[in-house]
């Protein structure tokens, strides 16, 4: 009897509070944050996209905007504009306008981390322009802009054309001394959204971007992966014209070697890259069916990648951003005393960083 009574009590106590009924909740899927101008400089223009559930509605989404200086206040204000309760539990993407990102986004990132409802998988991206403008566009070919945007960024990061930057990675790299955060940067095209490369941060401030054409080279330097293809232009020494080459199904291995003999000695970093892949397109003078020529081509390919890698490194050093996380490697190869006495931000731009590329052509496709 007693047991049944206890079960009855438990049954009665269950599920009567903190309810979230799906029909009554509007789940924000994309959130855009832009810096306001002039007198309202400390405020943010918050735009949110909520999927539409009303069957007769013309648009497939509900677009809400508000001006606010705190995320929570913004959510309350957004709720006032909708017949549903606005919640962040299904948020997939947060877009920061370029201007907001240039002023630093650490505060917003920290707030998102504090609220357990955000989760750590929210993708953080930068808009080259205004997030509000990008989100307000109707996109006739993709009426569900939140799904479109999410899939676009997801696909590009799988192909290693842009980093997979979720709230977790961004926060993690933000707090780490030996690396600066990176994020995808997107732009608005004609009735479409397009990837615009990799946004580079110095601490929490957006500094510059890597163009999509150099993104692959950046990822060679960034770490090991296997995906995607790279298009290269090889310059022939004898002839003025250049040869086009497409290197596909790439597997990349990266190794970083730090040489530091002492605290006062000059540090040297060698980034060893080993790429392996299939050659799918080549219109140069070499006969790629011959082994000897293929070897020559491998060398040309390596040299070409090495040259571009060097350029990317020089850009990063000039902008004083350690997006490759070389600082971590340096930290792990010197003593604590040396590391704590080292101002990495200051030292980094002047360090001798050399890429060394070894390329291997696995095959040349199924037709010779």
């Amino acid at each position, binding site marked *: 009897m*007693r*047991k049944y009574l*206890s079960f009855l*009590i*438990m049954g009665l*106590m*269950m599920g009567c*509070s*903190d309810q979230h009924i799906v029909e009554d909740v509007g789940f924000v899927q994309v959130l855009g944050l832009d810096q306001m101008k002039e007198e309202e400089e400390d405020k943010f223009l918050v735009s949110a996209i909520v999927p539409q559930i009303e069957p007769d509605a013309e648009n497939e989404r509900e677009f809400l905007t508000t001006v606010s200086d705190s995320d929570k206040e913004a959510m309350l204000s957004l709720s006032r504009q909708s017949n549903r309760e606005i919640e962040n*539990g299904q948020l997939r993407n947060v877009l920061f306008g370029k201007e907001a990102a240039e002023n630093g986004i650490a505060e917003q990132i*920290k707030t998102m*981390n504090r609220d*357990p409802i955000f*989760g*750590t*998988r929210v993708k953080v991206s930068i808009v080259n322009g205004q997030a509000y403008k990008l989100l307000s566009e109707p996109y006739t070919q993709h009426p569900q802009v939140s799904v479109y945007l999410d899939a676009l960024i997801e696909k590009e990061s799988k192909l290693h054309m842009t980093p997979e930057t*979720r709230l*977790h990675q961004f*926060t*993690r*790299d*933000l*707090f*780490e*001394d030996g690396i600066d955060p990176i994020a995808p940067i997107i732009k608005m095209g004609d009735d479409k959204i397009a990837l615009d490369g990799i946004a580079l941060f110095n601490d929490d401030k957006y500094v510059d971007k890597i163009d999509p054409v150099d993104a692959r080279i950046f990822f060679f330097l960034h770490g090991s992966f296997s995906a995607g293809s790279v298009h290269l232009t090889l310059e022939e020494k004898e002839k003025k014209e250049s040869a086009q080459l497409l290197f596909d199904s790439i597997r990349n291995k990266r190794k970083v070697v730090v040489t530091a003999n002492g605290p006062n000695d000059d540090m040297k970093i060698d980034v060893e890259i080993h790429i392996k892949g299939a050659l799918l397109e080549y219109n140069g003078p070499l006969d790629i069916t011959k082994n000897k020529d293929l070897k020559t081509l491998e060398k040309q390919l390596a040299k070409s990648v090495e040259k571009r890698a060097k350029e990317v490194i020089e850009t990063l050093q000039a902008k004083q951003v350690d997006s490759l*996380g070389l600082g*971590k*490697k340096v*930290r*792990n*190869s010197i003593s*604590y005393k040396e*590391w704590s006495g080292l101002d990495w931000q200051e030292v980094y731009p002047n360090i001798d960083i050399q890429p060394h590329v070894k390329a291997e052509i696995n095959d040349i496709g199924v037709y010779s």
Partner: protein
Amino acid sequence: MKSYETEKLHPIHLIFLTYMLQSSVILFSMPRYVAEIIGTNGWVLLLLFGGVVMFNIFLIQLVYKKGEGKSVFDIINRSLPTFFKYPLYALIAIVWALVAVVIAKQYIFIIQIISFPTTPSYYLLSMFLLLPLLLLLHPVYKMVRVSSVFFILAGITIVLTVFVWPEFSFERLTTFFFKEADNPWNWNELLNIYSGFLGYEVCLLLIPYITKHSHLFRSFYWGNGLTTFVYVYTVVLCLGFYSFEQIKHVLYPTLHFFSYIEFPFLIRVENLVYSLFLVKALVTVTFFFWMSSEAIQQIIKVNKPSYLHISIIVMSILLTAPFNTRQEMEKVISFTGKAEMAIAFFLPILLLLLLWRKRKVLV
């Protein structure tokens, strides 16, 4: 003797029980404590803590050997006068009851932050405490067996951690040892970390319930090994998943990283994980209430133990009622943890002294 009291306990039940008793909600915040108090690669120190626990279990094993398998209460009842032993029983009963209720409250606090922010905490707490009450209706053998079943549920959470491995990097562990702590080598805080290993003292009260084949102490050594391994594994995983400065800001790093896992059919796994942790908290809470009631039954004879259980639970809720916010809770946790630790160490020592004195008198 009733038939169930002679049932045999397989050592594996006891190993699982030890793990369930030791690891509790502190596992959620353990990596942060380690980062704040010990510093980089602080997991190394956890191995030492595991060793200290081994020594403590060894002390209890000595009690078992020297006392020739007599129960703790028998030893005390025979050698201490009433005016001394009753306050002692009352004290340990109160501490154990407080430990139980504090663990329950801590668990409720976490699920409140995450899922039920506006539900009154007493609502959740009373719902949770109904479960130990039901478990306490059964003899201790059954409670041990139930714990083994619960272990399988809790074990799922360990398996789930495999899915965060791709984000793990040894680089983030750094090559430095015990550096960059916010609050380095603070003894008070170190003891708080050690309190995460407590719970093994239950074996003191299990002595009369086991046969030789159960290998009580060997099982507890193994169980403690398992707990230490899980703690070290979790801390290492978190240190390689988060950056070192970041981990200091994450309130429950172990819970937080589960939110990173995504399956095609399921996201936000952390909600599943803290639900599964319910069983861990439940086992610890149940056993501590049981121990508390055992101690009280040495003072007053009770015909219906379930009334005693209810009164212990209600009293302990009332005693901890004023402590509700995170800061207040942390103070209580730290206090009860230290009291529990003192009992775990000094009770076996006291028992050994009593046994030694008795032997001397006999000689």
